[in-house]
């Protein structure tokens, strides 16, 4: 592993963010390609470790990964600068697009395009919820608590962050089947 200059990695991060469509999960593969394969700045295991930590914390996954990669390679200054690199290209892209929408947003074709795209977005969110539950939700009791949480929040209009924290509290205190299963595996 050779130690690269911060400026160079900053430019790499800007480039990745400027061409990474589809959000964080579109950006991470590009980061891996650049950092691990092409430039050999990080080892595969270091990079996956950074992603794993980034995923366990709140916030956009691409931002969190940049912070961990920056810390690992250059310390706190690196974390700030690399995050800046990831944020700046979309920032200006969105400002330009907002401007274009102001001019052309009323066209019939554009409005119909958005009608179709809206449905795709809803589908993507539902699919994400399905994948997230498949990956993380492994016991019935948590599933029941989540279901009750969604119903109560929907009908009682509880603030979402409050609902999130209350649900987390109940999932934490209710004993998990998963724990029992993992003990059983250990015993074998």
């Amino acid at each position, binding site marked *: 592993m050779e130690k690269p200059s911060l400026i160079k990695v900053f430019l790499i991060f800007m480039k990745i963010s400027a061409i990474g469509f589809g959000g964080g999960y579109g950006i991470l593969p590009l980061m891996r390609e650049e950092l691990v394969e092409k430039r050999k700045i990080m080892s595969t295991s270091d990079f996956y470790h950074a992603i794993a930590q980034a995923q366990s914390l709140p916030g956009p996954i691409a931002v969190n990964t940049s*912070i961990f990669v920056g810390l690992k390679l250059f310390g706190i200054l690196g974390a700030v600068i690399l995050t800046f690199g990831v944020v700046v290209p979309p920032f200006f892209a969105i400002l330009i697009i907002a401007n274009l929408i102001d001019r052309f947003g009323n066209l019939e074709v554009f409005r119909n395009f958005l009608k179709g795209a809206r449905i795709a977005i809803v589908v993507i969110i539902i699919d994400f919820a399905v994948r997230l539950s498949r990956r993380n939700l492994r016991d019935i009791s948590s599933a029941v608590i989540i279901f009750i949480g969604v119903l109560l929040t929907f009908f009682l209009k509880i603030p979402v962050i409050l609902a999130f924290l209350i649900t987390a509290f109940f999932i934490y205190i209710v004993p998990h089947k998963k724990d029992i299963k993992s003990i059983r595996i250990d015993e074998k």
Partner: protein
Amino acid sequence: MNLKILFSLFASFFKIGFFAFGGGYGALSMIQDEVVNVHKWMNAQQFLDLLSISQMTPGPIAINAATYIGCRISGVWGAFFATVGVVLPSFVWVLLFLKLLNLASKKMDTSRIFDTLKIAILVPISLAGVNLSLSSVKNIIALIFGAVAFLILRFKRIPLFWLVIISGFAGIILGKYL
């Protein structure tokens, strides 16, 4: 430039970033509640349009959404404060996490707390899914459209970018039927 609005944008997005477990989509569910339900800065349809645009624009979706909402509400400075607001909590969390890791990992199981929060984020995400479905799927054609898109995504795993583009073109063809 209205300082009160700028501060309220910053505070909202800081809160969103701070509780956005589960990455960008966790953030979106929080943004939906804060922007559509609490502050009523935009309606559900405008919010979905913003997500379509974010998905078609490079960069992290939560950042795109923050920049766009900030820009719509209070111009370039609004975009700036909303974006900084949503990014800053990540730093707080990472630094806190590294501190906690040294202090607490011997005494308590921090990974179980994070695991729990990652499950609980399903509540905001499912709610966003339900609320946004109700406001965008209004007739049987839209429902069939959605079901087909869902099956394609489930079984073919095409890039989300292309799903949005293709659905957009389908929207142009189906036009007034949706």
